[in-house]
């Protein structure tokens, strides 16, 4: 604590700390995105099977739940995050191969990638400029995510195309909410660990990219 320090100095040091977390988060996020795109390419080039992709995703999520929270406060968290994002990138391999095999596949993938980037930049800019606290959405977003997962499990067996599209549209909305929440949490000091912040934003981006690609694929002419 700094009992004799003027309030203005404390505020500016707090702003500096926030800016540092934000800068480190975006730096780590960009590096993990590059790394996961490399592993996604490996997944495509090696012809990764759907089973292999599922196993890679399960291992990545297990590491995200059980390993990352234990290592995020040390430098060991960085290689763990790279391992998680690399596995998740590899898990995208079969899905990307499927869409790239379509006649307008490369356009679809690039449109989904660019669209996700534009939405992310727009939402980050919105959260940073308004400086609004979006923590009030936490309960709503978690319930939304819970309902979507239940519907997704049901649709694995029901195979209803309309439900699939509705779920992907819902995922885009929910991930947009998570991006706003996560960015505002960094700004307001709710998230001070840049490794955890980068992991959360990476997951939101990945889910939004997949959902957008599914929507574009479903509505494309091919």
């Amino acid at each position, binding site marked *: 604590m700094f009992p004799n320090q003027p309030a203005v100095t404390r505020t500016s040091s707090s702003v500096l700390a926030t800016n540092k977390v934000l800068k480190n988060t975006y730096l780590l996020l960009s590096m993990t995105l590059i790394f996961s795109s490399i592993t996604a390419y490996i997944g495509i080039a090696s012809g990764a099977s*759907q*089973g292999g992709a*599922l196993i890679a*995703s*399960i291992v990545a*999520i297990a590491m995200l*739940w059980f390993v990352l929270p234990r290592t995020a406060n040390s430098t060991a968290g960085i290689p763990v995050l790279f391992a998680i994002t690399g596995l998740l990138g590899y898990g995208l391999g079969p899905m990307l191969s499927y869409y790239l095999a379509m006649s*307008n596949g490369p*356009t*679809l993938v690039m*449109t*989904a990638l660019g*669209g996700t980037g*534009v*939405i992310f930049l*727009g*939402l980050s800019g*919105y959260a940073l400029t*308004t400086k*609004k*606290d*979006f*923590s*009030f*959405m*936490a*309960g709503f*977003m*978690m*319930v939304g*995510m*819970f309902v979507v*997962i*239940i519907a*997704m*499990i049901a649709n*694995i*067996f029901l195979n209803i195309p309309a439900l699939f599209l509705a779920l992907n*549209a819902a995922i*885009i*909305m929910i991930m*947009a*909410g998570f991006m*706003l929440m996560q960015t505002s949490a960094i700004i307001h000091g709710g998230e001070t660990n840049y490794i955890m912040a980068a992991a959360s934003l990476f997951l939101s981006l990945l889910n939004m990219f997949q959902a*957008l690609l599914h*929507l*574009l694929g479903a*509505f*494309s*002419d091919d």
Partner: protein
Amino acid sequence: MNWLQIGSALFGIAMLVFIFPRMRYAMKHSPKGTMKDWLSYLFPLGFIVLFVVFLIMSVR
């Protein structure tokens, strides 16, 4: 029904089990938003919907 479907469903159920306590905690402890707060979420959301529609139109 193949093992991929069963594996995916089990993975989904594991996610539900993991999310459930966090969802309950978030519902109990997150601050309540006012109408103005929710509008500040709906405002960018409207733009996202329009943007996604634009992207869909561009690939058709």
